[in-house]
């Protein structure tokens, strides 16, 4: 018998954890001599009360949806993919190569080609750790951490020695050709007298992310493969009994996970920077962990958590802009969210379970 009803597990536990994280964050803000209420108002104001604020919030959320889904898919197969960052970096490389070296006639084709390349590169970067886990039992957490660093070094090499335009100061590729620039929300929704989303980076990739949510939901809960991935995640011995190959599932799940992480690059490189810069992933790979944890590995949850983190990111940038609160506050909040919804989950869960067991007994 479950100790707790499903809704409590899916909503109540993360909510309480989140409140705890928020409470501690408020304490931190107080400790550095600022007013948490004002800070929160400022964040809401900057992130949600203006269309360009939304433009940033949604831009960040798009990144986090992809990396969150990536972590979630792997989690379903009980694989902890901590390598989203590296996979996103490689995804960026794939997207950059596709944009720079293929003459796309129109953005609609470029986004397909770029997405394909980004996903393929991200997936390939996940393939090696996946293979080593499946075939040689190398702990995927450690290998993916290592691959994050190797990816950073690789991108560094490629940008500095191969793709950097001569004479350029920055380790970044040349700007992508005009035809690969994705329409931003401003392009799509702004009118002459109503400059919606002006200057904000949210772009058509957001819809790609929504599609990815739907596809991942279908994949995990509606397809045979998803059935097998979840089976493997719940019980590897049972999966083997049913003729589900652990090697295959490990590799396929990680390929999908790496591909999703790689897709993040479509948003960050093609949608925003319109070139590949050195830290294009900007830590979104790690935030994906928090997003997946909070979203309970469900696409709807991931979407909500990604929006929350998008809000935190944009709101944090506003804070840094108008107050003395450094942007690192967001890193702290993020850490607290991961800590409470992930590692200290049981701190909330155990008393709740007791409560429910007692209530049922009564």
């Amino acid at each position, binding site marked *: *018998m479950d100790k707790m009803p499903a809704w409590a597990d899916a909503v109540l536990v993360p909510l309480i954890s989140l409140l705890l994280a928020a409470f501690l964050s408020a304490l931190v803000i107080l400790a550095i001599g600022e007013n948490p209420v004002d800070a929160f108002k400022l964040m809401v104001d900057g992130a949600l009360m203006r269309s360009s604020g939304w433009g940033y919030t949604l831009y960040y959320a798009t990144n986090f949806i992809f990396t969150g889904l990536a972590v979630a898919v792997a989690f379903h197969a009980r694989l902890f993919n901590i390598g989203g960052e590296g996979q996103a970096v490689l995804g960026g490389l794939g997207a950059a190569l596709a944009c720079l070296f293929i003459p796309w006639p129109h953005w609609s084709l470029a986004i397909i080609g770029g997405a394909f390349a980004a996903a393929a590169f991200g997936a390939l970067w996940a393939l090696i750790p996946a293979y080593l886990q499946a075939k040689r039992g190398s702990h995927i957490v450690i290998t993916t951490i290592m691959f994050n660093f190797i990816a950073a070094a690789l991108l560094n090499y490629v940008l500095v020695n191969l793709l950097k335009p001569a004479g350029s100061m920055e380790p970044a590729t040349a700007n992508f050709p005009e035809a690969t620039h994705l329409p931003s929300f401003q392009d799509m929704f702004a009118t002459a007298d109503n400059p919606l989303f002006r200057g904000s980076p949210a772009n058509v990739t957001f819809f790609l992310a929504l599609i990815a949510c739907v596809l991942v939901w279908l994949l995990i809960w*509606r397809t*045979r493969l998803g059935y097998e991935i979840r089976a493997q995640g719940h019980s590897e011995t049972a999966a083997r009994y*049913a*003729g589900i190959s652990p090697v295959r599932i490990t590799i396929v799940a990680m390929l999908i996970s790496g591909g999703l992480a790689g897709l993040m690059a479509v948003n960050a490189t093609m949608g925003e920077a319109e070139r590949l810069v050195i830290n294009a992933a900007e830590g979104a790979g790690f935030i994906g962990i928090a997003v997946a944890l909070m979203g309970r590995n469900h696409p709807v949850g991931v979407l909500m958590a990604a929006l929350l983190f998008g809000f935190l990111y944009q709101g944090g940038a506003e804070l840094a802009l108008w107050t003395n609160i450094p942007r690192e506050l967001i890193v702290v909040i993020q850490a607290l969210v991961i800590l409470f919804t992930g590692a200290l989950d049981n701190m909330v869960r155990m008393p709740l379970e007791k409560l429910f067991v007692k209530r049922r007994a009564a």
Partner: protein
Amino acid sequence: MNDTVPAIELKGISKAFGPVQANKDISIRVMPGTIHGIIGENGAGKSTLMSILYGFYKADAGEIYISGRKTDIPDSQAAISAGIGMVFQHFKLVQNFTVLENVILGAEEGGLLNNSLSKARKVLKQLAEEYELSVDPDALIEDLSVGHQQRVEILKALYRQADILILDEPTGVLTPAEADHLFRILDNLRAEGKTIILITHKLREIMEITDTVSVMRRGEMTATVKTSETSPEELAELMVGRKVLLRVDKKPATPGEKLLEIKDLRHVDDHGVERLKGISLDLRAGEILGIAGVAGNGQSALLEVLGGYADATGSVKLRGQELPLSGPGSDGSARREAGIGHVPEDRHHEGLILDYTAWENAIFGYHRDAQYQKGLLMDHDAIRKDAEGKIERFDVRPANCNLAAKNFSGGNQQKIVLAREIERNPDVLLIGQPTRGVDIGAIEFIHQQIVRLRDEGKAILLVSVELDEIFALSDRIAVMFDGQIMGFRDPAETDQRELGLLMAGVTNTKEASHG
């Protein structure tokens, strides 16, 4: 020694794991210098009770008296100080430590190891001589056989000068010879005045060695009786709560064509141990072949190989068609496609995904079938309907296919697995421990289903540790020992004693049984 004060007395012990009430208000007295048996079905709460006595779990309520003194046992340290030693069902040894290191762990003398090690070496030598408990003190645990590992566990307890020794299902993993050896040791210990609690499922052992016996059922203590004043039949009844009638109505078998031909099947497990050492047998349509044997003699490996999730060499033919034994086409789904169904021994870790709903579990292994697909997606409506039918026909309770498998009781979980495998109408059905932990009512139903399948002309390979079940169902019995088949017997022409000898590896049964 005071013979009127119990060595151990438990009063009103209760323990719940979340919603599961493992022990309910249990009281028990064990006299010093006796061997006290505890029996009960799987999950009855035996291990839980003993673990509480040993300080491994904390009781929710109840009191413990050692030699008449009320004693608090909040952790194992307290139990050890009170003179209690325990050999767990699952050994608690550090695999890559030496025997010596395992023995001194937690009972070291002083902060440095040197002294402790040399002292333990001496004591171990003494104990080995005293109780025939010799093990190489410098061997690594992972290199020892289970029997020897068990000796280390006993040595650990004796090294700590335990007066009360608890053994939880010690013979489950032992060969009959090893079990006999163990019982001799227990006899010696009793003779020295030590008190022993022995948990076992085997009534024979209870009758053979214990002085008193307690019976547990569903977390409750149903009776405590003097062994000399009871009988196996009475104990069995106490255990399950009603008269046990392990006879199945069935017509004589009418074996048909050879469906499965197995030749020289060999299998080496992950640890490099050869589990199957050249198995050959035939299975005919319309017969039930029962495989008897002590746990750990290769029956599980046989089912796993035939079920397609362990690699092997040799030859297996289904209706004359060679089946691949490793590589592509040798996995579980290929076997199912070929017409081999499989009810695995362990429903929790193999047969079911406990977190999946009943309807998801009802197609587990067959989830790739075309009938469950609709385009790229799975056809959930079809699967649900299918599952509802199975649940109704097999009388699974509660009849709610949206409930997670973990929320069904053991017997009903088993029915879900059986329904799934039997309704497929496989040509060959592999069944492992069909009624482990299942109540009597369900056992009868399950047995009927198995016999019905046989009567429909299917071939059934049955593995069970319960000899009664083997006798009740089988048309032919094969006995396995140490990865080999010791012989085939007709159930009508053999008895438990002969099978027991075969299970112990004695082939010359006629002589042995007469001599």
